[in-house]
């Protein structure tokens, strides 16, 4: 991965939620999560695009110069992938409803899209899935990974396996062991880890992550955490060696009319020195939550101020809480636009700070300093 941590922002068909190109200018978004289900019914169009025009796919979705990350599961869309007893594919939610989607079709679509990163097709088991269902999901994921590695070896696509199994360590180990063969492939890069959205038991999450990492101890692999990309999970994951994070939280919060209100990002140098540089422990995250503001608010003239007083985001520099609350009360779409800009900017600050701290070898100190403000 070019920079770590990598924040992979979710999109709809390559367009960031609520953001026109003009409004994106103020944000330095350099990644796109592309969900296969968004493009299923477009295969003929994409083929024509390739064969009949000189417009690249990236130009088509207006995301030139960005890192494209293609996956079958997109947490922003509920139940976008379902299991199937057929071993050749899964059911994917498209605009026209649920469709059977084979791995061959998935790989063909990947060729058309040509992302930097492809997460191999995977079957998402039900939350309360039984052993049989989990085993099938694991076997299929492994099979799909092998097929993608074989079929796409002539491309520049870097392939990630998908580790399912929820937070059950046994199933996580099973999933990891079944895909261990992949480390010998030159186009294999690492794993996207699923199931960590469930609950807030950090010890369970730590255990589930560590068993996967132990299977691949000694191998130079990259890990991406699938899911909402909430800030606490990012801090936890980065401390424990995860390199990238699927991120949908800023958009989800904006859709839910919430503004993120994180604490300060900038610590003074001597403020960090009092904290340990060891990996974050699960108990340090208990009950930690990032503040947010729910709109609409009880509007008063005193709210004619930015969301965060010294925030440099476009929304805070140009508008106020009072105005955003008015937009929400009037059911105007601009509310989500401004909240998306504000929320995404906070993630940009976070990413920038984590990179800086990584360079200074003070990541864990900084994370502890940040957490103690919550």
């Amino acid at each position: 991965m070019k920079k770590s941590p990598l924040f992979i922002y979710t999109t709809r068909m390559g367009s960031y939620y609520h953001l026109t190109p003009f409004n994106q200018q103020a944000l330095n978004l350099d990644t796109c999560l592309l969900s296969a289900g968004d493009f299923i019914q477009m295969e003929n169009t994409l083929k024509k695009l390739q064969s009949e025009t000189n417009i690249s796919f990236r130009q088509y979705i207006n995301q030139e110069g960005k890192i494209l990350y293609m996956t079958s599961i997109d947490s922003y869309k509920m139940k976008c992938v379902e299991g199937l007893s057929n071993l050749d594919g899964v059911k994917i939610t498209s605009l026209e409803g649920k469709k059977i989607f084979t791995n061959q079709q998935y790989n063909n679509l990947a060729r058309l899209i040509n992302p930097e990163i492809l997460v191999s097709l995977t079957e998402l088991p039900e939350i309360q899935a039984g052993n049989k269902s989990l085993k099938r999901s694991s076997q299929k994921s492994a099979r799909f990974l092998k097929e993608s590695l074989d079929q796409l070896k002539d491309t520049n696509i870097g392939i990630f396996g998908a580790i399912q199994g929820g937070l059950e360590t046994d199933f996580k180990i099973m999933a990891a062991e079944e895909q261990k063969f992949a480390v010998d492939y030159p186009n294999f890069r690492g794993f996207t880890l699923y199931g960590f959205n469930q609950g807030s038991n950090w010890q369970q999450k730590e255990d589930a992550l560590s068993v996967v990492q132990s299977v691949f101890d000694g191998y130079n692999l990259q890990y991406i955490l699938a899911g909402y990309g909430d800030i606490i999970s990012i801090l936890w994951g980065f401390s424990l060696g995860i390199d990238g994070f699927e991120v949908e939280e800023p958009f989800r919060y904006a859709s839910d009319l919430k503004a993120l209100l994180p604490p300060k990002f900038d610590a003074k140098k001597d403020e960090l020195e009092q904290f340990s540089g060891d990996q974050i422990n699960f108990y340090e995250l208990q009950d930690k939550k990032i503040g947010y503001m729910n709109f609409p608010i009880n509007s008063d003239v005193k709210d004619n101020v930015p969301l965060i007083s010294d925030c440099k985001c476009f929304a805070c520099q140009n508008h106020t809480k009072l105005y955003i609350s008015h937009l929400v009360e009037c059911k105007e779409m601009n509310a989500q636009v401004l909240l998306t800009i504000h929320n995404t900017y906070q993630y940009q600050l976070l990413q920038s700070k984590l990179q800086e701290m990584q360079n200074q070898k003070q990541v864990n100190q900084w994370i502890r300093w940040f957490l103690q403000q919550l």
Partner: protein
Amino acid sequence: MQELEEYEIIKQKKIKLNEKPRPLEFTVLATHNFARASILKLPHGEVKTPVYMPVGTKGAMKGVTYQEMDDMGCKLLLANTYHLAYKPSGDLLEKVGGLHKFVNWKHNILTDSGGFQMVSLSQLSEVNEDGVTFESPYDKTIMHLRPEDSIHTQNQIGADIIMALDDVVRTTTVGPRMQEASERTTRWLDRDIAAHKRKEDQNLFPIVQGGIDPKLREQSLDDLIQREANGYAIGGLAGGEDKVDFWKTVAQCTAKLPNDKPRYLMGVGYPVDVVVCSCLGVDMFDCVFSTRTARFGTAFTDYGFLKLKNSEIANVFQPIQQGCQCQACKSYTQSYLHYLIAKEQVACHLISIHNLNYLIQLMLNLRQSIIDGKLIEFVNQFLKKWYQKEGQIPQWIIEALDYAKIPIQQI
């Protein structure tokens, strides 16, 4: 684009000592018979006319930020008193320094009085000499709005141009009710003027009424012109009337309204209508159609309306309009927008941006053609393209433009 001796004309105007600057100055730079290319100078800057004014009813432009409006070159847009009076309220807007500051818009704003919304959106709308009684659509309370109340709220909102409260009836109403409405609008205008507390920085435009009855229109025109406003609006049209009645009524109004004052035709925003009415001497237009139709996937092009949801658009790898500089056309193809409309709101924002930009540029180009002495050529080219698919330009357009001394070649 070169302004025809624009700044020379302005420099030559002498300002008398101790004369307070007026909140509106209107300078006609060039004409073609009734059509004018002008500069409208308002408290928040200059506006080139003819102009299309986008509608931001509740202090927002339906997914398009005010910064994007600025980027498009918009200098004057609308907000609506009826809605703003309820949320966030005139009192709050006054406390924060007015709507400009509330929404962070540095250019000009025009507020409608709320008269049309009261009768079209509200239940139990009753009108008497005192005002309008209606049920608020927000909380069902019974409201009574007098001309004084509308002006007070518009003073609080702080727009550069405010509208007189008028007695609104359907365009096609005939008989005593239309006469009553027209005459009452004049009486209410006097109350509007008396109630207006910010004459130094807000321009109150009266609204010419009378439906499509030439006599009532003439009476209304006479009454309003006597009041010597800084500008005038033509109301009570675009309500389903026959197009011949429509253009003739517009022509009657523009022929009589003072040449040195701007004329605002309310609720008109179809591309063909703004072109024709500009030729008849209208300077300002507003309409929600551009953004409303965008939300249903319809875009404006030189060749008419483009329905982006249609299946044949799926494999069209061209922008909505070749040469268009809006962010939708610079960034995306019709094909992509076709697929995106079904999935994500931002597609509607992009089409709205395109449609708004289309109308803004249409007006600027029409204006320039007046200055360049090429209005006839411009209008002919526009109509030829717009009606290319249909193969024929409607007769009412040919007649209207003939009246405006713009000969049109039928396709």
